[in-house]
């Protein structure tokens, strides 16, 4: 650090930072010359807690690993457990899980769409985003009893069947959201300030993607068609008809375009799921879950969260508690390795849009 430089902490209490994390930067004038991510404000030791609990008691824990999008965690943990125990789940359970996952992706993308505008000082879409997301949370409340944490996906299927008339209400809400989206586009996409600030911001060199393990919308904005739903299809995704969305800009504007098109894709997928959903059982027969011994083995399961590839590495030693559960969220790479390199040379005012573009989520970095 020379005498020309200033050391500055951005976060953990800062409106532009995504959650409880901070970035320490060195500034030369307005330009960042060095950056370092600091996490640890939110460490609750979930991986350790899971080692002390029987499997079924870990379900209220895993959903808390990522607050805005808990269903990916539940689904991953349940699928890993089913694979270790060798359980086949009914067909309808797979479709209901996919419906819940897509609804959860949709609410996260809508909130993010408002959030990216908020990071640049446009505060109207933030309120809209949170408001429209709330309609989806209402559906979740009806389905699962919880608005944020659902604890709905269980090993062997899902906890309850869909309520009567639920499909119609979902379809009706999709129509409402689809009508609302042009208003968002008008205020965000066609805004000259947003275009000017995001185009060319956070330009990621293409060779970083494979080398660093960048996934999700960030990789797709660089033209890499990486989507776990297509590459390693899980649940009901193999039966759905969709294309992987890619853009060619490598910058924050391309990430915005990818996520905007993901909203349309999610709405499309939800309509397909409801159209094709079969009838039947929703929960497989399980042994007594309180005395459930899982055969020794290990597995790695993954799924596509809104931020990228979300994976669970699970090891069982034959007892009723897991030997090790390693939760690997995409933010670990995006928020530490990529963010530290990406911030160098940027303007101090662009820290918030870059962090929101990468969609870093601190709870999944520290577990």
């Amino acid at each position, binding site marked *: 650090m020379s005498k020309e430089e200033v050391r500055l902490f951005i976060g953990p209490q800062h409106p532009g930072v995504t959650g409880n994390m901070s970035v320490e930067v060195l500034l030369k004038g307005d330009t960042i010359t060095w950056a370092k991510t600091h996490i640890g404000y939110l460490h609750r030791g979930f991986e*350790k807690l899971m080692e002390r609990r029987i499997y079924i008691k870990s379900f209220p824990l895993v959903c808390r690993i990522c607050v805005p999008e808990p269903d990916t965690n539940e689904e991953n943990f349940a699928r890993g457990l089913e694979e270790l125990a060798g359980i086949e789940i009914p067909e309808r359970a797979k479709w209901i899980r996919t419906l819940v996952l897509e609804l959860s992706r949709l609410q996260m993308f809508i909130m993010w769409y408002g959030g990216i505008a908020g990071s640049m000082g446009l505060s109207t879409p933030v309120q809209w985003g949170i408001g429209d997301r709330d309609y989806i949370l209402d559906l979740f409340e009806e389905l699962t009893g919880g608005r944020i944490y659902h604890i709905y996906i269980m090993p062997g299927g899902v906890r309850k069947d869909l309520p009567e008339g639920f499909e119609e209400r979902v379809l009706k809400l999709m129509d409402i959201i689809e009508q609302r989206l042009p208003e968002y586009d008008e205020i965000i996409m066609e805004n000259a300030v947003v275009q000017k600030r995001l185009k060319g911001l956070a330009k990621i060199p293409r060779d970083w993607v494979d080398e660093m393990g960048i996934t999700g919308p960030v990789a797709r904005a660089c033209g890499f068609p990486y989507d776990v739903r297509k590459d390693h299809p899980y649940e009901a995704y193999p039966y759905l008809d969709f294309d992987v969305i890619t853009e060619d800009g490598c910058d924050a504007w391309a990430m915005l375009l990818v996520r905007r098109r993901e909203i349309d894709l999610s709405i499309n997928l939800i309509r397909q799921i409801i159209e094709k959903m079969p009838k039947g059982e929703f929960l497989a027969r399980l042994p007594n879950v309180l005395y459930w011994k899982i055969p020794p083995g*290990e597995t790695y399961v993954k799924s596509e969260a809104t931020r990228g590839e979300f994976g669970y*590495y699970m090891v069982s030693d034959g007892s009723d508690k897991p*030997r090790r559960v*390693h939760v*690997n969220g995409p933010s670990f790479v995006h928020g530490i390795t990529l963010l530290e390199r990406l911030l160098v040379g940027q303007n101090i005012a662009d820290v918030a849009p870059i962090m929101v573009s990468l969609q870093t989520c601190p709870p999944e970095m520290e577990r």
Partner: protein
Amino acid sequence: MEILDKLKEKFEILQSQEKREDLALVGTTEKDLIPLLVYLKEYEGYKTLVMISCVDWIEEGKFELVYNLWNPSKKHNILVKTKIPREAPKFQTIYKIWPQAEAYEREIHEMFGVDFEGNPTQHEELILEDWDDIPPMRRDFDTLKYSMEKFGEREPKSGIIIRKQISEQYDEWRRK
């Protein structure tokens, strides 16, 4: 599986298994692990390091390091594992092969106490602050004992007492 046969010819493989169509598992010796990772990266297209994990096998006195690689063109994951001694555990860093390994190794150093020789930032705190006990993710770390020693026994919260009083009063009222 093709890739497992190739690896068996070139390296000392202790354990190999095909878990799923898109997931294989390979166990190797401490000495062969890094050459194997480099071979997979340079010649077999496993370009991406997804994660590094560590498992504590306390009964055997071993730590198991797990490297998860992904092949973007074949859409295939491979878990490469090795066991290192639990006493004074150390291993070589791979952060020059994959930059994100630096952060993963830093986490394992903090949580399990494995020393990655050559990693420049592993001694910096990642998650824990002023930690003064054995690394917390080890199996022999007792969370309850630690919190009792560090923070002492907690007094019951006043809210609980008030709730109890209310329920007692309610019971009395019902008996009338």
